[in-house]
């Protein structure tokens, strides 16, 4: 039983197990009328804090904080593609998302998040003018410092801000928002606790000024009218988020001029 020196003994977190929480919480969420854990209205997003130029070593970068969800995205390049890559007339986009070990309430081991990385890739590639950097690759690397719900939408919005900071040509910024369906209610920009109890989730990433959707992901249980309602909610929130992102870029441009 005794752990030998050098090997790490098995450890466990003393915080209460999630099973207990679920039993307590589920009836509350299934009610028609309940209060969100952070006191927001159902259709109210968390306050967003956005800043460009977080990492000096990168060609462009951005930091985004939506409630407890904190993300840094760095852009490198356009730089030489990997040697093994075939010749390409248009540029390549390489996305990677990683989490810190302390991002989640229970310490997690480092894992590669291929699914999130590929979703990030899919939602960005439609917005970038890949023909402006032929033969080369732009790297989009994201690190989730703290995961507090809605990680992917925050990563996507933050990445498009970082791309703009790096001077990569885009048709428009990409804003992403997700909505959870919990019982009879739709809640926008859910936190982790709400995401754990959701029946369905809808995420929209769109180009706000062109009113074009680059990605729409619907998972779980939905009815058609609910999907329409959720889409409306998301698109409206995306256009508002787009404005905040634009003002963040303007601000950083004006401070760098001074």
């Amino acid at each position, binding site marked *: 039983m005794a752990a030998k*020196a050098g090997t790490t003994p098995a450890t466990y977190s003393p915080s209460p197990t999630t099973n207990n929480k679920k039993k307590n919480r589920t009836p509350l969420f299934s009610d028609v009328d309940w209060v969100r854990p952070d006191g927001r209205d159902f259709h109210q997003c968390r306050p967003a804090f956005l800043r460009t130029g977080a990492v000096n070593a990168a060609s462009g970068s951005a930091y985004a904080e939506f409630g407890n969800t904190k993300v840094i995205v760095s852009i490198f390049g356009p730089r030489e593609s990997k040697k093994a890559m075939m010749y390409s007339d248009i540029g390549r986009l390489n996305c990677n998302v990683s989490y810190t070990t302390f991002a989640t309430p229970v310490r997690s081991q480092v894992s590669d998040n291929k699914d999130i990385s590929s979703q990030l890739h899919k939602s960005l590639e439609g917005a970038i003018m890949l023909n402006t950097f032929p033969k080369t690759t732009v790297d989009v690397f994201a690190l989730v410092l703290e995961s507090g719900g809605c990680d992917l939408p925050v990563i996507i919005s933050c990445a498009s801000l970082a791309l703009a900071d790096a001077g990569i040509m885009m048709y428009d910024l990409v804003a992403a928002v997700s909505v959870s369906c919990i019982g009879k209610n739709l809640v926008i920009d859910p936190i982790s606790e709400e995401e754990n109890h959701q029946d369905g989730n809808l995420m929209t990433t769109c180009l706000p000024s062109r009113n074009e959707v680059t990605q729409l992901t619907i998972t779980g249980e939905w009815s058609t009218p609910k999907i329409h309602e959720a889409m409306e909610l998301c698109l409206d929130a995306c256009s508002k988020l787009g404005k905040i992102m634009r003002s963040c870029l303007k601000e950083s441009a004006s401070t760098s001029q001074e």
Partner: protein
Amino acid sequence: MVESAKGMNDLSSEMEVDAFRRLFPLRFHERHLLESVRPDARPLGKARDTSLALGAVASADGSALAKIGSTTMLAAIKMEVMTPAKETPDEGCIAIEFHMPAICSPIVRPGRPAEAAPVVSKQLSDTIVSSGMLDLKELSLVSGKAAWMAYLDIYCLDADGALFDAALLAAVAAFSHLQIPVVSLNDDGRIVVFSKESEGEKPKNKPVNEEKRKLKLRSIPFGLTCIIHKNYILADPTAEEESIMETLITIVLDSSYQLVSLYKPGGPALAYQPIIQDCIALSRQRVGELQTILNEAICDMEVD
């Protein structure tokens, strides 16, 4: 190389500064050293502006964000419970890991970890363990049954030289911010977080560590990395300086100015006694500065 100092005068007057810096980086820097100044306008022995913020990560038990110039480190501690080893039933354990994620530097790519990361990781755990800053007995919960395992993870968010110094500063700051959760031993022999709310429901077991929520930190270690180049000593180098002048020496002193470690990993320049003494003098000065910065950060935290 000696006459190059003359030759470059002519070249440098004909070229743009940026082009000269890229084409002849060594001459560019040596030209500065002659004037006892560095490209970022620092004198040779001066470290960059340093800032420290405690409690940056809400989901951790202790955390700190340290910035030296552009180099940024985020350290966080998560406490977990383990069964102590048979030889040391009254001691907890610390596990220190240093990460360089792909966001921090153009050299690091996902799936291909930076060479520097495991080196700094080892250096950090050696330094923290050998400095005697922590008493592992304080991490004990129930003798022979349960003890704390402190997972300290340090992430480099922006790499611009002197990684070890910044990582060590973030690490010691995270330990000084650490607030150990109050726990109790439940009927199954597992340690669980003690919560006041559930007290009313049924008689709970007593907390086992109520008066041991903060670790006593003795003799906190601080580090300073210097470049040795010819007769010059450059304190707290940037990534550019580290890539051009390759001989580094890292000195760690504790808060009472005792030498904890001295690390000179090879390099073309040799370190002679007077140079090492000069480096130690610089580190003494730096330890004073860092101590003030840490104390201010702790005070700021207490006011909030």
